[in-house]
């Protein structure tokens, strides 16, 4: 029966084509997985490479005298820079905590008001502004305009403006996740907006708000560009003046000293890189742990 064989042959061929198509699709999928894995592997390799470089050369450059002596020319220690970074970070937090959290509170608790919308929109604009632009703004207005020269005040205020939108945004998002029924219950008990926000909503939002503040801390430790023309550089420890005298900081050492032709300068740059990277990574691990603990408690 020729008809049957013809039909058989058609079925066989169709199945063969189907199998070929399936195995081609499997092969394509496999290849795509390999490419995706390679992308992730390249990323992980880079991070291990970068952190490895900083660790190996940084640890080799560590000496106790780094923490007790100031920089002299392109040698000496890092005491002035370590102290300067701490002073600037402290000043930044001092400014950004009240202003940033207030902005977040207003944007979240009075969210439908016009001013809240203005805060939210311009916070998004501010977060997109390059940090060097803010540094130049600080130079034009404070260093030159107000005659503060390179100073702690000019540098801290510039850093605080950079951090503002981050703190405001994390606070706003954290408050947005507090259930509305809690607020209503508190209002029903006769509490005012201040009591409700500070004693009910903020208490629940606190872990996330703290991560926002930690992010600000990491930014103020790790930034360089906005400080170049607001903080300047100083070989001496801080003299306690807010304006009029420059201050050293760690990230400057990395940038300026790696370009020097001396081994001692390179050692200082790598030691500074180790300290900065260590601090920033520690901060990000801490903020992650705070979030994890908060999630577990809920």
């Amino acid at each position: 029966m020729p008809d049957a064989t013809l039909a058989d042959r058609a079925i066989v061929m169709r199945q063969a084509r189907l199998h070929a198509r399936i195995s081609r699709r499997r092969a394509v999928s496999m290849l795509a997985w390999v490419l995706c894995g390679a992308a992730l592997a390249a990323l992980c390799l880079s991070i291990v490479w970068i952190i490895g470089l900083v660790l190996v050369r940084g640890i080799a450059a560590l000496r106790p005298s780094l923490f007790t002596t100031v920089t002299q020319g392109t040698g000496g220690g890092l005491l002035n820079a370590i102290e300067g970074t701490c002073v600037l970070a402290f000043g930044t937090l001092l400014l950004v905590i009240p202003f940033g959290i207030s902005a977040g509170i207003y944007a979240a608790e009075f969210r439908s008001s016009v001013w809240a919308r203005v805060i939210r929109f311009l916070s998004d604009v501010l977060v997109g502004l390059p940090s060097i632009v803010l540094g130049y703004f600080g130079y034009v207005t404070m260093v030159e305009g107000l005659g503060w020269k390179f100073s702690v005040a000019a540098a801290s205020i510039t850093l605080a403006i950079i951090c503002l939108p981050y703190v405001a945004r994390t606070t706003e998002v954290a408050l947005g996740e507090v259930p509305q029924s809690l607020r209503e219950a508190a209002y029903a008990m006769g509490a005012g907006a201040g009591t409700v926000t500070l004693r009910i909503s903020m208490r629940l939002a606190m872990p996330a708000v703290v991560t926002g503040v930690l992010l600000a801390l990491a930014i103020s430790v790790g930034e360089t560009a906005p400080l170049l023309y607001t903080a300047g550089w100083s070989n001496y420890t801080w003299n306690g003046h807010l304006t009029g005298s420059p201050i050293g900081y760690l990230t400057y050492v990395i940038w300026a000293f790696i370009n020097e032709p001396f081994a001692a300068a390179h050692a200082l740059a790598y030691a500074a890189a180790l300290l900065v990277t260590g601090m920033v990574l520690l901060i990000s691990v801490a903020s992650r742990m705070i979030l994890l603990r908060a999630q577990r408690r809920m």
Partner: protein
Amino acid sequence: MTGARRAPGFGIGMNFRRLMAILGGSVPVSAVAIVLFLAVYAWPAIRFNGFGFIASNSWNLGSLYAEPVSQGGAMILPGAQYGILFLIVGTLLSTAIAMLIAVPVGVGAAVFLAEALPGRARLWLSFLVEMLAAVPSVVFGLWGYAVLIPLLGHYIFPLMTGLLGWIPWFGEPAGSGYGLLTAGLVLSLMIVPLIAATLRDAITAQPMYMREAAAALGATRFETIWKVILPGLRPVLIGAGILATGRALGETMAVLMVSGNALNVLPHSIYAPISTMAAFIASQLDSALQDPTGMATRALAEVALVLCLIAVLVNVLARLILARATAATSQQRA
């Protein structure tokens, strides 16, 4: 807050609101002040430079030891000219290269993290990728300077000119390692975590039934991701991508350390030295301060202003696209 108005804490409530409004006003006030002060400060330079500022390659402070002359109503040094076309081109090209590398790598890494790895490995590798985002930009610059540039300049770029030399922009000379491609590579590393982390979270958050439906139709796991999950996440990818673009446009230190800081020339190959607006502001203030007429620092403020405008434009664009994409998706769902 009508509830608060009737409550006994009325006075405190209103004062609290006003206090938050005033303190929170620091955000809009700073944003407006930055643009306003830079614009006012740069105004004499804007008037003096005109359109040539963004259309010519002629950044020249003039002769620093000569008497300032009056030209076009402004006091300048003789021969002073300010044109930053090469900076605009350098900024846009390095960002474009960074995005060309970062988007596919970020998508691939996100898909692998979200779908291919078991729980514990996923947690640790996600953490590793997020660590990359925390590394300060000057440390990226340090790595680029100490590791990447010798490696690229001595081995990879000469190899690339040999293999890919027939493609325009990829041919000789291979250069020193400082340049456009190096800057793009370092920038891409800095922005890839943002894309990867955002997309990974979005993939993980997609409902299980979509995967089940695709699997029931006979799709392989990768086809499920590629044809079912990822198309729905296009707005997320566009949003993260444009935010990453904004960051790459304004990145300063890493670019300053690896770009070769070219002056007044346009790149003619992918290995050629460039400079970007952000890096230029950081590197030029010291010499601009030598200009007794102050026109150089005002011209630098104009650079900052142009960079500012591009950054705001990119940002607003991202939000518009995101809003439209989200509206379209919710319409589809409905």
